[in-house]
């Protein structure tokens, strides 16, 4: 299955979840948020939210600067 992660195409297994997509970019969990098709998926639902072909995944990192 092909999904876009932060704008770059990735080939993931057909049963890949949101967590799997995050792991493509980082093994960090704390301080990371992820949006699928422009909607943030809450942390507690990363494992239970499956991805679909052509989903757009955006992995965001918290920054502290002000």
């Amino acid at each position: 299955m092909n999904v876009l992660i932060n704008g770059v195409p990735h080939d993931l297994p057909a049963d890949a979840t949101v967590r799997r997509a995050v792991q493509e970019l980082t093994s960090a969990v704390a301080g990371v948020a992820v949006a699928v098709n422009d909607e943030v998926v809450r942390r507690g639902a990363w494992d239970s939210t499956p991805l679909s072909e052509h989903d757009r995944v955006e992995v965001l990192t918290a920054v502290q600067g002000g």
Partner: protein
Amino acid sequence: MSLPPLVEPADELTVDEVRRYSRHLIIPDVGMAGQKRLKNAKVLCVGAGGLGSPALMYLAAAGVGTLGVVDFDVVDESNLQRQIIHGQSDVGRLKAESAAASVREINPLVNVVIHNVALTTDNVMDIFAAYDLIVDGTDNFATRYMVNDAAVLLGKPYIWGSIYRFDGQASVFWAEHGPCYRCLYPEPPPPGMVPSCAEGGVLGVLCASIGSVQVNEAIKLLTGIGEPLVGRLMIYDALEMKYRDVKVRKDPECPLCGKNPTITELIDYEAFCGTISDEAQQAATGSTITAQELKDMIDRDEDIFLVDVREQNEYEIVNIPGAVLIPKGDFLRGVALERLPQDKKIVLHCKSGARSAEALAVVKNAGFSDAVHVGGGVLSWVKTVDPSLPTY
């Protein structure tokens, strides 16, 4: 989703005020009623730095009646590249005083309240209580989580913004109508994983890009116009020149604003964020690995020397297979160094990543330049590598 105005209108505008705010008054959506609401509004800016500078200046010019400034810091020459509320002659002056002087110069009709203190769990509730709306322009995770928690506990909306290099994010967090910061980011990145602006740099004008979004949202909330940035995260990329937004829902499991909150009062934010010294932060920047990366190193049979810098009793509760226990104190006293092999890569870990970052600073200073520490420590190991292990 539009929301009702946050503030009731003031009784009237003076002749001076009508002249000054005429370009607002002739916008039908703002008009006399909107400007009177701004006059009655009390807005607090937390931090008179990069984001606080444009925020305070535009809020002042817009005619917000009462503007509070919280900052304990003094103006440094390195601030002037982006903190435009301060000038050359303000170097060495308290930021809150300097910012207040600029606000008075921009608009003498504004009542400025100076809070020349560090925001702490002892004063944050009292300070916030006097305001309708808070603008978060702080520069560290510990204060950001404290601002969020205090705002949620007081039922107040706040406008969050954060910046790094060319990237900015902003949102309005108002638990009554949408998510809070913890719904988006349940906890901060481990110490050392994400550099601050002091370590990684920030494009000066980025402060204006994000600070002006914050002011824009403040005016909308105060006057009840437009679509507020509640339940949406605005993401700005200055290099691509793109503003995008993603939807953020309230997390029913949020420990603060969810259905069964476990955080019902302020907590220890330094401990929560694993706040560490500048030296440790510096050592950890670029030298922090994740627990999964450590697991991969072990699986590949890499030549590493894994050191657990916690205390004996903690080691007995849970430990990472193969780790040698050398408590952090032994590093600070210098006696640990002779136990480190010269020919192996040193990998340090503790419970959450704060102590190992401190020990890392010592180890790197002693010449072990490729040493790293594990962000999130053994807690992260349990979470991501071996959930069967106990945590404490």
